[in-house]
């Protein structure tokens, strides 16, 4: 009684698939984030280098991390929605 969700949850046949995809994309982003922290800490001067339209690596990499998160989120949502529609067809989902 105490531990059921506020809104009744439907059975989701795609949850394992989504969890695996989520972990893969998490590690992908994590590696790129670690790359940023690594350059900032161990090769700070490299951050000064202009890489796009005269703008330095620090700005491009930092803004790139933000934009990449948004793009990755959209890709993840698209793939998950597709898989949910495929695996949770009427009759299969409760």
């Amino acid at each position, binding site marked *: 009684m*105490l*531990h*059921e*969700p*506020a*809104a009744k*949850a*439907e059975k*989701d046949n795609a*949850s394992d698939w*989504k*969890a695996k995809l*989520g*972990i893969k*994309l*998490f590690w992908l*982003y*994590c590696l790129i*984030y670690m790359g*940023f*922290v690594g350059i*900032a*800490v*161990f090769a*700070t*001067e490299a*951050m*000064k280098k*202009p890489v*796009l*339209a*005269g*703008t*330095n690596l*620090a*700005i491009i990499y*930092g*803004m790139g*991390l*933000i*934009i990449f*998160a*948004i793009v*990755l*989120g*959209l890709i*993840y*949502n698209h793939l*998950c*929605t597709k898989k*949910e529609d495929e695996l949770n067809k009427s009759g299969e989902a409760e």
Partner: protein
Amino acid sequence: MNYTANPIAIAIFLAFVGFVLGMSFYFARKAKSAEGYFAAGGTIHWFVNGVAFAGDYLSAASFLGICGLIATMGYDGFLYSIGYLAGWIVALFVVAEPMKRLGKYTFTDALDSKFNSKGIQLMAAISTLAVSLFYLIPQMVGAGVLVTPLLGLPHWIGVCMVGAIVITIVATAGMTSTTYVQFLKGGLLIIFSTVLSIAVLNKGLSTEPREETFLPQNLVAADVTPLAEVSDQESGLNFVKLEKDGVANWWIVRGDLLEEAQSKTETGDGETLYNGAPKADARFKSVGLVTELPDGQIETGKVGVFKYFSTIQQSKVVRYPKSSIAKFEDGGDHVMVFVPEVTAGEDLMIPGQKFKIKDGIGKLNFISLMLALFFGTASLPHILIRYYTVPSQRDARKSTIVAIGGIGFFYVLTLFMGLGAMTLGVIDVESGNMSAPLLAKAFSIVLFSVISAIAFATVLGTVSGLIVATSGAIAHDLMDNYMGIKMNDKQKVMAGKIAAFAVGLVAIGLGIAFKGMNVAFLVGWAFAVAASANLPSIIMLLFWKKTTAKGIAFSIGVGMLSALGIILTSPSMYGQYGLDPATAIHKLDNPGIISIPLSFITLVVVSLMTQKDNEGLKYVG
């Protein structure tokens, strides 16, 4: 700086507060049940929830703190934007859907979904309270910081006003009104930050100071007779006191020349003087100036995004970092002289002005902070409860993506707002926290009024979310689950409202007690405590079948206590205690790099020792 109340600002502010309160009373009828009160009945649309996520997350630390940090320290402030946003990746890919699937009102429900353990209920509720209180303090301090320039009222009145309004919002309609306040504030914040950023790019960069900006005069030292001379050993600078226009102020000795300085003096008889005169005389001015543009230009005119960054990289900027403030005694007076520092743009636009990443401990502190920011977001109780306001897992995921889009876009804008404040001479030299609203003031008083009202709403939205989270932890996790106090639905809502009222009063007290503390200061620590106490449990519950209830309870306890222990004995806290930071028992300011792995190890070791407890339980990951 001298702040005076403005009628337009007051009118916009009052209209906004009136609207928010009216909305709360309107939604009050929907909050009769516990589901309605704690989780808005699980009926919020994913888009509204996503923008409300942004409204909840973009706290005073983001809008006031990050913009202020970029304005005073350059790129290092933007590191917070990057880290705060990256944390949403953990929320989206790892936490969002399972949290929705497993929980009811609070994240404790999700952690405890497999076990029904008193240990988890107690530790997770305590952790929620600890993290939320850490997060509340800077929000309430931010409220006090805002009302001074907006309404011309003292700090404590601002704190009490926020407390009273937020208690009303939460106590009338709980999560529903909180959601719509956050939706409204999140949307307005993103729209008007865009307006402000476009205004910054349209204005471009100029070496000509604004009329309101402090521009020091120079005198030949041999031509004047000082009233006093001081040699400050710490800064290695000499200062002289001169009388000019009937006012005695401090000047910095620069070889044969004297450079006029801005100063703050606490006199022996308790008076505070700014540049030698009372604050009301308005002699104390805003700062920040480009002293040199590439190719000897005087101004760039309207610039594009990349041109703006590349031009600053090739310019020189005058800043007034806190580390350059000279403090000395003059007779019975305590004097602070704000010493300007000319910094090359190429150094401002990379990490290193605030975070001293050249030495070993500096590197460790930096990595530790970035780790806590990355793992902290998905562990914040007031963020996690928002997953229970939408109808399905799919909605939980979609709303997270809307949040990432909105928050990410806002964080990109923090660069323009922060750098705009730095180069347009609007910074209050005493505190960078008001940089974004003051930047708006440089363009128009209406824009300033709207931005300030939104900044105030920023505090309202985040504090409301925090109070809902803490009232849920007290009424649902502690009273109902842990203590087993039997309550019907109506009594649960009443308990939640009483808890919200009590937490609101505590928040007011903390906001007044911590006046003057940097609003970004404690938020980083709240992230570290959340990441250390909560994230290992969430991750391991989902992905390690051998996780036991005792493993989770001990992991939360060890993570929370180790993070708090490192924070309370850190050099920064020694400074807060009035002790010499160099004498701190360790050099680590950010605990994440120790406390997060420690929490993981504790969970694994205790779980392996208590495997018998799991017999007969079903894996829920």
